[in-house]
């Protein structure tokens, strides 16, 4: 066989997977630096939500039923909620990019290279994680400015950030999987977000679950977003409404474990599904 002068023989090794993943991640991080607008708009949304709820809607929402020092209390309650919401929106940070790659044919080029199939998505999700960590840092600073404080131990706080990063990473794999099934970037932009809104609003992100109708309460309680927000409130030592601290229900007591479990389950389901979709994806869903 006289294949080529460069001795590129096929050897599937872990080294290749790492090499390929880093190369692809580098591509996407370069892209973030080339189009800083995208990072800017990824940042502006959570910051806007902080300001909106801290200063506009917050006054109308009371925690634990008492009105005293309610506004300051609410802001400390709010920030971990916004963390959770931002992590959910990590989906959107990748869906459109994946659909664009698929439709532009660059995904075909990747698939025709002797690289590991998991590496393309692995690199993309890694870059997306990097972007989300940046967003979480800026968001934490904004939180500190409006009066949020970490009132727990360093270990708990670090665990809190680890939880947020893990959850964000799991969400980007869901985003990748969605992106691979969308016909165009325009549709991907909407489909990536549409299901997140009801999920984040039917949760304890902005309002205590006790204020919701009784049929919605169990849904909101088991909602992964609620578990994540509650876990962050626990880990950062921020206020928790009485209803969610009563110790009567499983998700309340085990919020931290539940949130980690949700993240790992999402990863275990959607990472293999996304890689499989990647291997069989046709350009723009085209037939011939």
């Amino acid at each position, binding site marked *: *066989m*006289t*294949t*080529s*002068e*460069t001795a*590129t*023989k*096929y050897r*599937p090794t872990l080294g*290749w997977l790492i*090499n*390929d993943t880093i*190369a*692809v991640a*580098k*591509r996407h991080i*370069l*892209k973030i630096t*080339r*189009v800083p607008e995208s990072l800017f708009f990824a940042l502006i949304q959570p910051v806007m939500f902080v300001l909106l709820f801290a200063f506009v809607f917050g006054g109308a929402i009371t925690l634990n039923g008492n009105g005293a020092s309610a506004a300051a209390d609410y802001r400390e309650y709010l920030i971990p909620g916004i963390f959770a919401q931002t992590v959910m929106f990590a989906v959107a940070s990748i869906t459109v990019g994946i659909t664009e790659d698929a*439709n*532009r*044919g*660059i995904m*075909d*080029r*990747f*698939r*025709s*290279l*002797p*690289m590991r199939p998991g590496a393309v998505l692995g690199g993309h999700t890694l870059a997306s994680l990097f972007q989300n960590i940046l967003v979480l840092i800026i968001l934490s600073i904004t939180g500190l400015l409006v009066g949020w404080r970490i009132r727990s131990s360093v270990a708990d706080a670090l665990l809190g950030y680890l939880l947020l990063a893990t959850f964000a990473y799991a969400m980007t794999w869901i985003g990748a999987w969605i992106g691979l099934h969308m016909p*165009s*970037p*325009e549709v991907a932009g909407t489909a990536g977000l549409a299901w997140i809104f009801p999920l984040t609003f039917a949760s304890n992100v902005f309002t205590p679950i006790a204020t919701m109708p009784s049929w919605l309460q169990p849904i909101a309680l088991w909602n992964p977003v609620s578990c994540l927000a509650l876990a962050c409130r626990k880990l950062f030592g921020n206020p928790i409404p009485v209803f969610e601290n009563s110790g009567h229900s499983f998700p309340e007591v085990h919020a931290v474990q539940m949130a980690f479990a949700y993240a790992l389950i999402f990863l275990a389901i959607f990472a293999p599904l996304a890689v499989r979709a990647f291997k069989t994806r*046709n*350009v*723009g869903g085209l*037939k*011939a």
Partner: protein
Amino acid sequence: MTLAIEVSGLQKSFGEVQALRGIDFTVEQGTVVGLLGPNGSGKTTTVRILATLLKADSGIAKVSGIDVNSSPDQVRTMIGLTGQYAAVDEYLTGRENLQLFGQLFHLSKKQSAQRADELLTRFDLADAADRGIKGYSGGMRRRLDLAASLIGRPSVLFLDEPTTGLDPRSRLGMWEVIESLVAQGTTVLLTTQYLEEADQLASRSVVLDHGSVIAQGTSDELKSQVGGDRVEVVVEVPSQLSQAKDALVSIASGEINTNDAEHKVIVPTSGGSRSVVEAVRLLDEAKISIADIALRRPTLDDVFLSLTGRSAEEEKPEVKAKQRSRRGARA
């Protein structure tokens, strides 16, 4: 000679649409074979199967003797693919793109940088190397795309409509580049709707229609299937078309066709240029005035027309609209 590509009994369906109904062809190492056919004939499906992007339902496809279905990873080390889209990253520079693909081909950092330089110079992109692709013209993008597919020095190159959508000057530029590749011994499978392109580049052609091979051979072999030379006469008075047809029976070597819209009579002949003289004499005798007369050798377009009953570049309007909207989305 060794076979670079071997396809036999290849079948592929998408739902109820049979894209490939069992096709067979081979490509010898170091040659260029054109895969011709209208939209939807199965060209792209064939290339996608050979490039390991799509799995066939049945049949065998081999690249340099390696089965694409059972050893796709090994096939990927030997092939290069340039598709209908410029498959490069919009936000990176030309050099960054080539280095990225070099790295993914598992060249060392130094090797990828060297290879990128080499290809940028060769494809006349050295000046634009450090500019973002966004500012590249269509022709430059295609050249970069082709360069990217050559990063790993593939022995077999798939070019899927490499010049579709390019202006004539860029197209000629691409042709030169492809010709120089072939001169260096690369095997090329080229799909195209432009028969002129196959005529120019390919030593042999495989003609597909509705997922089947309907003809294959060298350009000359295909042309001779249609018949030899033809005398084409355009009459000045449209009503004299059938009279002209009758008048020319004696020089015809086959069935005479007329094209009413163009007022043209097409007479297959074996008499060469003598037939033109004879045709002029016969028409003059019949008092039919001639607007234009010419001896034509058949083109691959004629081959296509006679094999499939329609022209190769004819597209269904819906397909065109779809392509436009996709292009629009990309821009």
